[in-house]
């Protein structure tokens, strides 16, 4: 197996300062938000890589950089050996673009309300000047809708059906990689099951590779082959699914698993996690998790932990 996506030392900084005049008058410094901080990982072909994290973890930012919607501040993303932001050959850029597709969280905002379903699904092919005869109808049937739906407008569909249309659009250009950013967070449980099943079926049928970004551990546990855990823009742990969920190494991962509601958690007395996610503009020194960490020692406050390999797990913690 080879890596389809390789992310190396990826960093993204956002300038969230006030306008310069305000800064001058109020004597404020520039405010820089390090949304993603030196993240490296690889996604093997035909696997599902799950990226989990809470708000401010930078998981969506990483997704946007991988699909090429956002340029990295530092580091690189290569999909099939091509870096979309530095590749000089326009033909290779176009080819790589059609290899990457994305499924978004909000099925109500991700379809243009003024377009018919056929035009929406065919757009990725139309823009490349490809042949679209019967394409929308074929894809609609593939995702479990009917061919006659092609002539309708998005508002005629429910949330789950819209997400199927999004999947159909994503498949139109015959991509290799699908980046799914919270694909089922806006859906009800029973509809989520339908969409997740569809995604599994398509992955097997078409040999797709998924990057599954989610805050929902249960979804990632069900779908992913390998899981990366993000905290404040840093990758703190990465492991094959079984290892991560049975023997988490990083204290943050353990905290997350412990805090997630369980279906058999009747009357469970959890010790709720301490503290809150810190302000990402002024992250804690050393290991960003140390103020909330039950294992923290002095070293954690000063020295940022490096990624280490423990068995199949990579973990960034001094105490693991």
């Amino acid at each position: 197996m080879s890596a389809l996506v390789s992310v190396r030392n990826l960093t993204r900084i956002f300038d969230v300062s006030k306008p310069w005049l305000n800064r001058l008058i109020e004597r404020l410094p520039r405010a820089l938000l390090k949304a993603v901080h030196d993240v490296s990982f690889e996604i093997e072909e035909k696997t599902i890589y799950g990226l989990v994290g809470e708000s401010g973890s930078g998981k969506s930012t990483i997704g946007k950089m991988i699909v090429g919607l956002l340029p990295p501040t530092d580091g690189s993303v290569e999909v099939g050996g091509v870096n979309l932001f530095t590749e000089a050959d326009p033909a290779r850029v176009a080819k790589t673009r059609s290899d990457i597709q994305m499924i978004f969280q909000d099925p109500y905002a991700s379809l243009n309300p003024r377009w018919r379903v056929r035009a929406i699904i065919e757009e990725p092919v139309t823009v490349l000047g490809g042949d679209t005869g019967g394409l929308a109808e074929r894809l609609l049937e593939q995702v479990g809708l009917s061919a006659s739906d092609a002539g309708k407008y998005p508002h005629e569909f429910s949330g789950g059906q819209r997400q199927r249309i999004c999947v159909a659009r994503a498949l139109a250009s015959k991509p290799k990689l699908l980046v799914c950013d919270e694909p089922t967070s806006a859906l009800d449980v029973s509809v989520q099951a339908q969409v997740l099943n569809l995604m599994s079926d398509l992955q097997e049928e078409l040999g797709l590779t998924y990057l599954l970004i989610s805050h929902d551990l249960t979804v990632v546990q069900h779908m992913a082959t390998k899981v990366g855990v993000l905290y404040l823009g840093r990758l703190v742990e990465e492991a094959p699914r079984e290892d991560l969920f049975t023997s988490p190494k990083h204290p943050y991962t353990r905290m997350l698993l412990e805090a997630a509601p369980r279906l058999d958690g009747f009357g469970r007395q959890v010790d709720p996690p301490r503290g809150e996610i810190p302000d990402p503009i002024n992250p804690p020194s050393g290991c960003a998790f140390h103020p909330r960490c039950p294992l923290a020692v002095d070293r954690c406050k000063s020295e940022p932990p490096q990624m280490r390999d423990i068995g199949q797990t990579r973990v960034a913690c001094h105490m693991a």
Partner: protein
Amino acid sequence: MAERVLRVADLTVEIPTRHAVLRPVDQVGFDIAAGEVLGVVGESGAGKSMTGNAVIGLLDPPARITGGQITLHGERIDNLPADQMRRIRGNEIGMVFQDPLTSLNPLLTVREQLTETILQHLPVSKAEAEARALAGLEEVGIPAAARRLDAYPHQFSGGMRQRVVIALALCAEPSLIIADEPTTALDVSVQAQIIALLKRLCRERGTAVMLITHDMGVIAEAADRVAVMYAGRLAELGDVRDVLTNPAHPYTAGLMASTPLAAQGHHRLNQIPGTMPRLDAIPDGCAFNPRCPRVADKCRKEPRPRVEEGDRASCWFPLQEAVA
């Protein structure tokens, strides 16, 4: 059994529209005892929020209650005039919504909002009210509460804001709290904190809680009993452990099986075919019949059996026999 705080019987809410009269809540009945958490769970469109809004008298017109009764401590509250209902909302019923910013006034400090609410509802002096406000903030676990009293809502993080809302809902010492998706907008770790907080306060003070959510996991962790809603109707009502581990209604069973947690390594998730019917197209008989694996002729024609005392599921062919 402890004192029954809230009793809802045969509650029906209707929305007259141009084409038809929609019924987002259809003959729903349940009660909540002091110190008990009743989870109300259902997918979008099931009518769970509408039920909560009906109880607190905050239905958006043209929606209105057209049948049934809501009683609080034995007194009817569904037919009260607006100003009396407003007093009850602060005094007797506290509210916590999904978005904490909708319940907080952005222009007032937390101290002003808390003391004002306390003074409005309790016969105490200003100094006493301020002391209670501080105690309230400390009770919901806000660090350095004395210092944060003078902060404005936007200066708090999402989780802290929800704590302030809970303090605000509790400060007039209500006997019932209605929490509508209180943790949906929060991160997993903060959600666990808020749930633990709600459970603790409810136990310590003997407050009845109606916890409305779509998240089965939250229900399992927080609720004592659970009401499962489908298409505006009560599908199943019972002890949370019974309902979640041995569901009686095929819909509850389907819902439980479709959560990724229940798959336990199976490759595919169990899925319920189809979708929840729209309010203008609720099928005859049992509303779930087109999607039900156990459907029979009876389900399509006869009106569904209702959840009565002792009967757990609104189903002609329940998966479990009723536990008397």
